[in-house]
């Protein structure tokens, strides 16, 4: 095998691809860390600006404008730069996952419902469509090609050259011959993966090793799956070309076509309503709330008699801010069922993809890789749940201060967001299922090829 130029071509190609992927991923990770740093800095500088400005207004060096930082409403919704920052895992360099689509630093304001659609990094949609060349991509798409390239001519090649009969004239069974031939190939691919694992392990802190181990467990299971599939094909009758074509078609089907079909199935079976509907609903709700403003205010002051101003008139003498608040609350209440429908359907989609991903090893591996690297939907969901809780804290902090209309100076007391990482064990448990499924399939394939070898006549 070492004398075969194809082997060296495959090896060099594999190494180059992995290096490019690693560098690429690491650069993206450091870019996202810049984003997080910029967010933290922005947060601090907005506070500093507010304090300076308030000082100047207090000392009469500057007239108070609409954007007065001493007003809790203005500060909370307009001047504050408040972010919920999702820290990067050290493994983010291995899998870009959803991190190019979803935010690393989510901007929050008390008056606006948090949404994962806010604060995503600006990115070229064309590039989002194409995807990135990261290590997960190299393992998912290129490794199967390397495995196929190394092994497609395993038995048929010998048969075509006529050397198979010669070899089997030795005291050797077909099975052991096959095992002897496939083993060095397994070692090459395994060696590549191990080298990659060693480099990655050196680059990440020890605390991240469990996740790293899981990541490589997936990579290994995935490679084993493709070895199994390749073995099943090459132990069948037929010539090298037939085997190569079959394997290429299998690769195309499993990695490129099946995931798109799964995507289609999910969108068809559990369609998410169009966001156009949401826009129209929110416009209608705003109109409605504006029309009913004076009733809304009446009800509001019945609930909060202490806040009611002395004046009267169509708006009960309420100021702009109270009006805003009351209207926004109503709009939010009206939209809640519409938004719930979206999240309900999305959750159903999520559950469906959790089942259907087992149809395609590529889809299975991609979601497991992203999960292990902390760039998958599971971690963003986990993050967003905390964001929601934090957002209600934020409201709890601002709302009484806004309504009391007292001078606001508590810029530094705004509760800050502290992300709590998910337990590694639950991540590992989730992923082990995927690893198990890949290994099971690989075992099935091995069994098939072993049976095929037993049945085969020797030449």
């Amino acid at each position, binding site marked *: 095998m070492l004398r075969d130029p194809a082997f060296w071509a495959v090896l060099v190609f594999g190494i180059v691809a992995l290096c490019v992927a690693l560098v690429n991923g690491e650069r993206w990770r450091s870019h996202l860390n810049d984003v997080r740093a*910029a967010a933290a800095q922005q947060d601090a500088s907005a506070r500093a600006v507010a304090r300076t400005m308030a000082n100047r207004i207090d000392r009469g060096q500057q007239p108070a404008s609409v954007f007065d930082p001493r007003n809790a409403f203005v500060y909370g919704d307009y001047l504050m730069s408040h972010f919920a920052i999702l820290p990067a895992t050290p493994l983010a360099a291995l899998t870009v996952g959803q991190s190019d689509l979803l935010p690393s630093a989510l901007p929050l304001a008390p008056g606006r419902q948090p949404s*994962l659609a806010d604060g995503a990094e600006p*990115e*070229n949609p064309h590039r989002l469509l194409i995807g990135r*060349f990261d290590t997960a991509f190299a393992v998912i798409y290129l490794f199967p090609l390397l495995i196929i390239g190394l092994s497609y001519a395993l038995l048929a090649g010998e048969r075509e050259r006529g050397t198979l009969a010669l070899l089997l004239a030795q005291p050797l069974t077909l099975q052991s011959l096959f095992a002897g031939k496939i083993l060095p190939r397994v070692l090459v691919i395994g060696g590549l993966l191990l080298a990659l694992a060693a480099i990655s392990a050196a680059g990440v802190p020890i605390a991240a090793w469990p996740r790293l181990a899981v990541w490589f467990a997936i990579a290994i299971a995935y490679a084993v799956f493709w070895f199994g599939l390749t073995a099943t094909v090459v132990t069948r009758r037929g010539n090298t070309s037939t085997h190569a074509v079959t394997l290429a078609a299998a690769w195309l089907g499993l990695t490129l076509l099946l995931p798109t079909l799964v*995507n289609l199935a999910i969108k068809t079976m559990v369609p*998410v309503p169009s966001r156009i509907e949401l826009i129209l609903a929110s416009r209608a709700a705003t109109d409605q709330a504006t029309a009913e403003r004076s009733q809304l205010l009446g009800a509001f002051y019945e609930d909060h008699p202490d806040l009611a101003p002395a004046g009267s008139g169509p708006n009960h003498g309420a100021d702009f801010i109270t009006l805003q608040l009351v209207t926004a609350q109503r709009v939010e209440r009206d939209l809640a069922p519409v938004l719930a429908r979206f999240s309900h359907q999305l959750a159903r989609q999520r559950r469906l*993809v959790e089942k259907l991903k087992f149809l395609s090893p590529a889809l299975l591996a991609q979601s497991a890789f992203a999960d292990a690297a902390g760039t998958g939907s599971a971690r963003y969901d986990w993050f967003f749940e905390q964001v929601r809780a934090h957002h209600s804290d934020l409201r709890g902090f601002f709302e009484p201060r806004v309504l009391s209309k007292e001078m606001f100076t508590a810029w530094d007391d705004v509760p800050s967001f502290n992300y709590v990482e998910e337990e590694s064990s639950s991540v590992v448990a989730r992923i082990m299922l995927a690893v198990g499924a890949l290994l099971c399939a690989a075992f099935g394939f091995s069994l098939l090829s072993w049976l095929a070898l037993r049945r085969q006549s020797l030449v």
Partner: protein
Amino acid sequence: MIATIARKEFIELIRDGRFRWAAAIVLALLVTALLAGAYYQRDLVKQQRAAQAAEQARWYDQGSKNPHSAAHYGLYAFKPRLAPAFLDPGVEPYTGIAVWLEAHKQNETIFRPSEDATVAQRFGDMTVALVLQTVVPLVIIMLGFNTFAGERERGTLRQLLSVGLRARDLATGKLLGSAAALALIAGPAILLGATTIALIGPAGGELRFMLLAVAYLLYLGIFLFLTLAVSARSSSSRLALVVLLAFWAVNCLLAPRIMSDFAAELHPLPEGVAFKARLQAALHDPAGPSIMMRDRTAELLHRYRVTREQDLPLNLAGLSLQVGEDYGYEVFGKFYNELYAPMEAQVGLLQRAAALFPQLGIQAISMGLAGTDLAQHRDFTRAAEEHRRAELKVINDDILEHPVKAGDMHFGDHDLWAKVPAFRYQAPAVGWVLSNHALTFVLLVLWFGLAACFAWTGAARLRPL
């Protein structure tokens, strides 16, 4: 003679089990992609139209209110979808579907469909474009790799050439035969596509469809010629297959990602959080509009031949609002350019990379003709922004022209709202799209020519061994 060879090649191919399987799979995929695409298309077009009409009505019927409140109320512009978009949705999953046109802010489009999708979305949609760009080339390779190499291995090539058959006739015959076999797949596919298009409409995309068909024929022609060329030159069919599969994998799979990442290295985008902070700072810079305000006020004083502002028969709040907007246009223009110029440079580089990989060429042209590339998304946002500016001008002029006494309020009514024409987006003409992709088209034609030459010379020098 050529006809005989072509007939033999054709019959051999269609009797081949591999061909039948491939044809069945390709057709099944195409039908799936067409049906799914058409289904979404019909829904989307209907929804978009209804929503735009509803929004427009909402604007006109907003009742009597302060004109500036109306400007804040604004209008949503929904991005319409061209008919061919269902063949290749392009960047649509990653661009927003609507933009809110309001006072003071040039908003970005919101609600990217990919945000409402699962991880499977990142693998892409099952579309006609995917089948034609990736699957059919593989089918061509599978069917054609042993056209010559196989005959050579079986020794039949020597027989053929020994009876005095010219190598080029053999090549032409084989080309025609395989092309005819492929036409058996393409024929029903085109028929199906045409029917779907006729059924769903909206009409008007015919020219785009025809050009799309031409582009795809060019692209698939490149693969057919390359396959024949490599097959004619390879000593064994196995070598031919490996070379062709490697080219296919690099072209369809590796090239887009590598070139895209390379383009991003060359033309990086600004970092988002700091970018937004700088934008906000520039927008709220009080020095910005103040000079503009002073000059315009002076201009008005001069025009009305008065010296004091309070003598003007105008409400200067209207001028101040318009000046604020004009300053905002400048700032937004500058910042969005900082954001989109590198994106356009990235896309441009990907288009030029068609010189190396035809896949990048067909991808760009296909999205362009389908109306789903970045340039056409940008064109929509440009039109929406133009509408916003026209609307604000009407509103602010009205405020300017209606001076109010202290404590009084001026209200706009239906007549004022009706001065703003309805938002109607006209998609760019095919000529505009073609001029964007002229170089890519040339590169694709060059690829086609080179591949044909390669096949021709390969066939001319056909060696029996």
